[in-house]
């Protein structure tokens, strides 16, 4: 009987090893996607804050560069496809989520810069596809959690979903927080603007500086706080 037990466990070992190896590969891929997406976000920030005479051209350039950067992430997603076919997707969803959410944040930011609108669920799923179809199914919670990193602009819409999506309420409070900071910045600019009667160019500078500073501080705080404790 011992031999048969050992044979069976050898099969189990193969099964467990295969799962563990795949999990490791996906964690690594997800981390690479996170890095690329963070770079894309910073890239967008930099371009949007540049001085330009033609704002529309600047915005388009930002969107194109952002997309270009994100296409590197798409290449990674394409390699993940065979690892996530069929029932495997949900088996490893937790490993895929962190990078995917960062990607959705970057993508939605690029979309917002270009179109001034919130990217839709279907548009994100379309971005996560190539000529062979979707790389893997997009979950509603990844979509919402990715977006909730973007802005407080859609806060009230999000509140409808909070009871249904794990972690969304946690992220929501961060979003509320960043919204308050932006409001405070806008207020400071308004007050100082009126006080010193600044010329328009200087006021623009002040706005640019204030929003840049706040959005960057905010990112840092979030990475040190929520994201890390979550990982």
């Amino acid at each position, binding site marked *: 009987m011992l031999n048969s037990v050992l044979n069976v466990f050898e099969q189990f070992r193969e099964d*467990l090893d295969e799962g563990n190896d795949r999990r490791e590969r996906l964690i690594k891929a997800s981390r690479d996607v996170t890095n690329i997406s963070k770079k894309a976000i910073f890239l967008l920030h930099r371009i949007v804050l540049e001085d330009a005479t033609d704002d529309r051209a600047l915005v388009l350039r930002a969107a194109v560069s952002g997309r270009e950067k994100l296409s590197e992430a798409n290449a990674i997603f394409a390699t993940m496809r065979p690892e996530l076919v069929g*029932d*495997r997707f949900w088996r490893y969803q937790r490993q895929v989520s962190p990078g995917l959410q960062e990607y959705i944040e970057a993508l939605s930011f690029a979309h917002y810069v270009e179109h001034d609108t919130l990217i839709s669920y279907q548009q994100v799923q379309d971005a996560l596809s190539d000529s062979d179809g979707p790389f893997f199914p997009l979950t509603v919670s990844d979509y919402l959690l990715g977006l909730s990193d973007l802005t407080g602009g859609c806060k009230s819409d999000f509140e409808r979903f909070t009871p249904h999506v794990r972690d969304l309420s946690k992220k929501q409070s961060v979003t509320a927080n960043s919204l308050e900071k932006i409001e405070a910045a806008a207020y400071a600019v308004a007050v100082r603007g009126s006080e010193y009667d600044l010329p328009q160019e200087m006021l623009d500078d002040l706005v640019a500086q204030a929003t840049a500073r706040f959005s960057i501080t905010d990112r840092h705080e979030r990475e040190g706080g929520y994201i890390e404790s979550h990982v």
Partner: protein
Amino acid sequence: MDPQDLETLNALLEHDVGVSEKIKEQVKEFDKKVRIIVGILGKIHSTPSTLMPELLDSVDPVLLSCQDITTSIADVIPPDQFWRWKDMWSNSMRTAVYAAGLSEYLRNGSLLSLPRASEILGIKEEWKDRFSLPVEDYLHGLISMVNELSRYAINAVTLGQYEEPVRISKFVKEIFSGFTMLNLKNDSLRRRFDSLKYDLKKIEEVVYDVSLRKLVPPAQAMQ
């Protein structure tokens, strides 16, 4: 957010809530059944071998009725979503495997295989992407069985069944050597595997006690 997109997302989320609630209902029933089974099997420690078949027979109908549960759960899981929901019932599932494994050992002295465990629980091959018995859960069930057998080894001696610890020792050693072949990560299976060593030691001590007092023939104890 676009109102139509909002509606779509809401519908998707509500569908998920529906699935989750249906599973919850079934898991509640599953837990009830499993508790009854565990209650019955708790009596093995005070049941003499002559009455054991009868006790084990009383487990079967409850265990087999778990097939209704697995069928109902498999029915509500959308295609490819097994792993999304399985955490909801994996504890009950592990306990069911434990019960089936323990019955199998006490009846036939043999190790319940994974395919046989699936069969007893009515899990069908064609459900694969919606409902299956993963290796991890099966192994958790086996570890619980060994935990229980280490206690049974002691109580069997109390009941005068001196050869039982020797049989258990051989059986558990085989399972243990099987586990040593696995590359376990630092997870719950790993921690529970560590508990097997203590079980093994406890059983060996019982074997030592009965052979020292010549309650079993030495040749048998050496097996």
